[in-house]
Each structure stands twice: as structure tokens, then as C-alpha cells.
């Protein structure tokens, strides 16, 4: 494909409800054939944004283009997008074949052609020969695939997905994450996916936009969102992190030294605008902290502190330890998988250490 124009473009898209601004000047591009997620807590405006793309809400201001054409004023039934609804919205009065063929019937496609294409798309989602069955004869995962097939049969430019995995149980959700990703690759269609579940977004997406209070906090590929969060909100919302309130003691180039309840730590924060004396928040991922039995062998400049074990949380591969340092801070530390700490008991003395470039540091919220 030489066509590098993005499939979906939003420019300063804004939606006001009475006095409440649900979506606030959001701009982004989604390139062709990519999987784009919008991640945010409930009430952050992501559903409103998705419904504007589908045409069920009209933006207060800004522009929205699909394949270079503005969609402002175009009704939902005339837009080249299809939507997988949160509760799927499969028509209970029709069988599966009629559900999937609905859109083609609206376009006036011939009956035999509809039947052929319905069978073909059901085949592609791995449900051959179910066309005559009723909706309630399907399992949750199968319904999911029918809902996708119903959209994909229309070959939309963009497929919108409104938290379709939310209603599934945990096991099935894990399975469907992988399946959705491979379906997207197989159909080679642009997916715009909204969710409040960070793991769904991280696993499936090519790009993630993190949304809060109607604004995009950061857009980037999953690893960037996870490892280099731009804002305190992103650092706190995506993945687990220990959050430490601290005060900036000194700034030396990229190296920031902070104090928190008497304890001192250094964090690498290139380009931050922190100044001495400012309140700040330090985010430290549990897996970035190394647990040791002695303070020997620490690297140059590592933050090392002596702690006691407060609790051991066994959870298989995700086991962690909560330790308390001498200043009284609680720190959640990932349990090393080597088994060297398998006998750890509450009250044991341990050391934690982490490199200054493992943590992120942001000015404290002024709220």
C-alpha cells in the first residue's frame, strides 16, 4: 500500500453537554490497518468520542474525517464505519444469518449474494454453518464473533468497538484479546477500540490514547505508554506503580534529588521543569525494584534502602511483597521469580534498590 493517508482523522473535536464538556479538543490520526485504543476511566468521555465517530452524537466543534472526507452532518447509516456495541446489540428476533446479512439487505444486495457473503464471513470468524441458528444458542465468545462478522461483512473503513469484552468472564476475556488481535490482522481493517481495561489496550493495540477528563493525556505505542508515561495520570492509570509523595531537594541537570519523610532518593527526569522546593510525585513500578538480602553489589547511584517485610502476597507468577522502609513508606515489590525469596516471612529484613532511570517524577497535582 502506497496510500499512507490516515483512515481516521480528528481535529480539535469537542463535545459539550449543557455546561459539561465531555470531549475537549481532541486531535488524533489513525493510520490504515492499525489497531488504535482509547483507554480511560469511566466518565472520561471515551464513549462520547466513539459515538461521535459513529454518528450518534454530533460534535460541538472540530472536524472528523474518514478517508479524507469530513463526516460532519453525515447520518450514522451513511458513514463507512461500523460499530460493535458494548452489549453487542445482536437482533434477538433474527437468526444469525439474518443478523449478519442485515447491512447487505439494506444495501439491496441480491439474496443469493447475501447468503454467499454471510457464509464466507462466518467462515472467516471461525463459525462456519451457524447461519440458521438463533442468537441465544451461542456462547458469549461466539456472539462476540458474530457481532464482528456482522460489521466486517460490510467491509467498513473503520471498525469501532465499544468495550465489547466487558461483559465476558475473565478467562474468556483473556482468550478474546488474542482472538480480536488476530481477527484484526486477518481482516486488515482499522480498529478503534475503547476500554477502561489497560491490559486489553496494552495487549492488542498498535497505538493507545490515554484519555482523562475529556482530553488525551498521551498517544503512543503500548511500550512507550507503559515505560515513558508523559503525565502522572498515565503513570498511575496504566500498569501498577508505587506512588510516593516527595519534595524536590535539588535539581542537577537531569538528576532530581527528592526527600520524602526524611528518606532521600534520586530520579532521572530529563526535560522536567521541576525546581527545588516543589512538591512532586514519584512513580515506581513494582518490577523495577530489586529485592536483595544485603546492601552489597548495588550499582553506582542506585537508591538503596533497608526495609522489613510487611506482607507477602502470593499470586503465582504475579506474587509480590509489601515492604516498609525506615521512614515508614510502604512499597510494593515484585517477588523475584528465581525462587531465592520463596521462604520470605513477615518481619524479615531485606534491602530494596532501584536505578534512578527506573522511576518517573512529576510535579504534584495542583488540585
Amino acid at each position, binding site marked *: 500500500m502506497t496510500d499512507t493517508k490516515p483512515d481516521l482523522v480528528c481535529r480539535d473535536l469537542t463535545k459539550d453537554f449543557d455546561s459539561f464538556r465531555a470531549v475537549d479538543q481532541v486531535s488524533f490520526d489513525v493510520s490504515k490497518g492499525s489497531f488504535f485504543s482509547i483507554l480511560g476511566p469511566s466518565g472520561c468521555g471515551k464513549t462520547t468520542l466513539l*459515538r461521535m465517530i459513529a*454518528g*450518534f*452524537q*454530533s460534535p460541538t466543534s472540530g472536524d472528523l474525517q474518514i478517508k479524507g472526507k469530513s463526516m460532519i452532518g453525515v*447520518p*450514522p447509516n451513511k458513514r463507512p464505519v461500523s460499530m460493535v456495541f458494548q452489549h453487542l446489540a445482536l437482533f434477538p428476533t433474527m437468526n444469525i444469518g439474518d443478523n449478519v446479512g442485515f447491512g447487505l439487505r439494506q444495501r439491496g444486495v441480491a439474496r443469493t449474494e447475501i447468503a454467499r457473503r454471510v457464509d464466507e464471513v462466518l467462515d472467516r470468524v471461525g463459525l462456519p454453518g451457524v447461519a440458521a441458528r438463533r442468537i441465544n444458542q451461542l456462547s458469549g465468545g461466539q456472539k462476540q464473533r458474530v457481532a464482528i462478522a456482522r460489521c466486517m461483512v460490510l467491509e467498513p473503513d473503520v471498525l469501532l468497538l465499544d468495550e465489547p469484552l466487558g461483559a465476558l468472564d475473565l478467562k474468556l476475556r483473556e482468550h478474546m484479546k488474542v482472538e480480536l488481535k488476530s481477527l484484526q490482522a486477518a481482516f486488515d481493517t482499522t480498529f478503534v477500540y475503547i476500554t477502561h481495561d489497560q491490559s486489553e489496550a496494552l495487549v492488542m493495540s498498535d497505538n493507545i490514547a490515554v484519555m482523562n477528563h475529556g482530553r488525551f493525556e498521551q498517544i503512543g505505542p503500548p511500550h512507550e505508554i507503559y515505560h515513558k508515561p508523559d503525565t502522572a495520570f498515565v503513570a498511575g492509570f496504566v500498569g501498577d506503580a508505587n506512588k510516593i509523595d516527595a519534595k524536590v531537594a535539588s535539581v542537577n541537570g537531569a538528576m532530581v534529588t527528592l526527600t520524602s519523610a526524611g528518606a532521600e532518593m534520586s530520579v532521572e527526569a530529563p526535560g522536567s521543569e521541576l525546581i527545588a522546593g516543589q512538591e512532586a510525585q514519584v512513580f515506581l513500578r513494582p518490577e523495577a525494584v530489586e529485592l536483595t538480602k544485603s546492601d552489597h553489589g548495588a550499582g553506582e547511584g542506585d537508591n538503596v534502602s533497608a526495609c522489613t517485610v510487611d506482607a507477602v502476597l502470593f499470586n503465582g507468577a504475579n506474587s509480590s511483597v509489601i515492604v516498609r522502609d525506615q521512614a515508614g513508606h510502604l512499597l510494593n515489590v515484585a517477588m523475584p521469580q528465581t525462587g531465592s525469596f520463596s521462604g520470605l516471612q513477615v518481619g524479615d529484613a531485606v534491602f530494596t534498590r532501584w536505578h534512578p532511570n527506573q522511576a518517573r517524577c512529576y510535579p504534584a497535582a495542583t488540585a
Partner: protein
Amino acid sequence: MIPTVPQPAFTKWCYRAYVTVFFVYLALPLTVVCVFAFNNSVFPSPPWNGFTFAWFFGTEAPFIGVFNERSILRAIGTSTFVALWVSGLAVAVGTCNAFLFVRHDFRGKALLYMLMLLPLIIPGVILGISILVFSSAIANTLEDATGLWFDGLRPGLILVILGQFSFITTFATLVISARLQKFDPSLEEAALNLGATRLGAIRQITLPFLMPAILASAIVSILMSFENFNTTLMLVGSDSPLTITMFDKLKQGSTPVLNAVSLLLIVVSALLGLLSLFFPKTKS
């Protein structure tokens, strides 16, 4: 179609206009009935001759108001008597039926439930004549056999009460069953567990829970009994309930006194109706 799907302004405007016209159609007959209750004229029709309360309180012919018109007052009394009996019986039997259908499983339950619904699909006139025919047959047989009179089985208030009861009970059963179905039986089990007797648990836990539905169905029963015409028409004797009395007067030619009665009926039934909707909401 729905608010989130854009529609042309013209379509929306037409739709709203239709809805408005519809509600005008709904309100119109009741409004004119009420308005002409205050017309200072002996006919309930235009022209408007000025405002008067004579059709409520008047004492001089031809302006005899409702509150001084014997036949109407007596009919209201008769209707009230009938309605209270019907409502009491219907609610009592309806409550039993609700317990039977919700709490018990037995052979023929589906059939019995079907039979219970039947009065809904039998035209009121037929219900009336069938009870009339049957009770007369019994009365004839008994009178032939004993030589005594059985006036209770001839057209009259007892038959009117039975006739109305025969279909109003179905409504009471449906309303009370619906509420009982929502009852969590573990509440009753908890009461038993805490030492209550079976009847005590029903009286102290289940019946209070059912009370809104019982009150609502009692009110609806009174309303239905008050306004029933078809069944009553076939069973009525010398004491006529209000609707029959009004019907007779209407056939003879109406005066605004009928408007005045109607106005009172409208106000009372609207209040009772609202009350019947209000009960289930406050208690649940």
C-alpha cells in the same frame, strides 16, 4: 426514531404535532363533560349561558343539583356498597390465588392458570347472561322443589356483586401474584429460623411486603366495579348502581346534572387511580 439518530426537523415537527393532536383527542370529551357541569342551562350543550354551581347544590326545579337529587345519591350508595363487597372478595380470593400459583406446584396448575385468565377474554355481556341463566335455573329448581322463594338468585345486588367479582378477581390475582413473585422466600425462612411459626411468618413478613399490591388491587377493583356496565346491566334488579342509573337518565335526555356527577366521578377516579400507582412505589 431515537434521540441519538438525527432526523429532519420537519419529521420531528410532524411527529410532535400528531402526539399533541392525540392528547387533545384524549382530553376533549372529559373536558367538555366537566365544563358543561357549570353551564347555567338545562341542556349540556352550547351556548354558554354563564357559570353556575346549581348543578351541584341547586334545590329548585329544574336546577336540582347532584347533592339534592335522591335517585343519584341512592345510586352512588348502591355502587359504593357493591364496590366494597367486590373489592373485598376479589382481594381476598386474589391473595389466596397468588399464594397458590407462586408457592405451590401441583398437577393441572397450568390448566388452572389458563382458566383463571379466562374471565379476561369473555365479553362482559356474556359473563352477565351466563350467571343470570345459571342462577335462575338454580332458583327455579329450588323453588319447584321446596316451594320457597330464593330472591338472592334473581337479578339484584347479590348477582351484581358476584358477576363483577367473577372477572375482577383475575386482575387482583395478577397484580398480587406479580408482587409475590418478587418476594425473596429467604426472608420468610429467616423468620422461621428466628422462631416464628409458619402463619406468623406470613403475617409478619410476607403480608406487609404484599400490602402495596393488595391496596393497589383493592383500589383498582373499586374503580372497575364502579364503572362496570356490561355485566351489571344483565344482572341488575330494582336497586341500580350509578352507571345504570346514569344510562337510564341519559336515554331519557340529559341534563347538566349528569355532567356534575360525571365531574365528581372523573375527579374521584383520577385520584383513586393515581393512588393505586402511588402505593407500590412508596413501599418498595
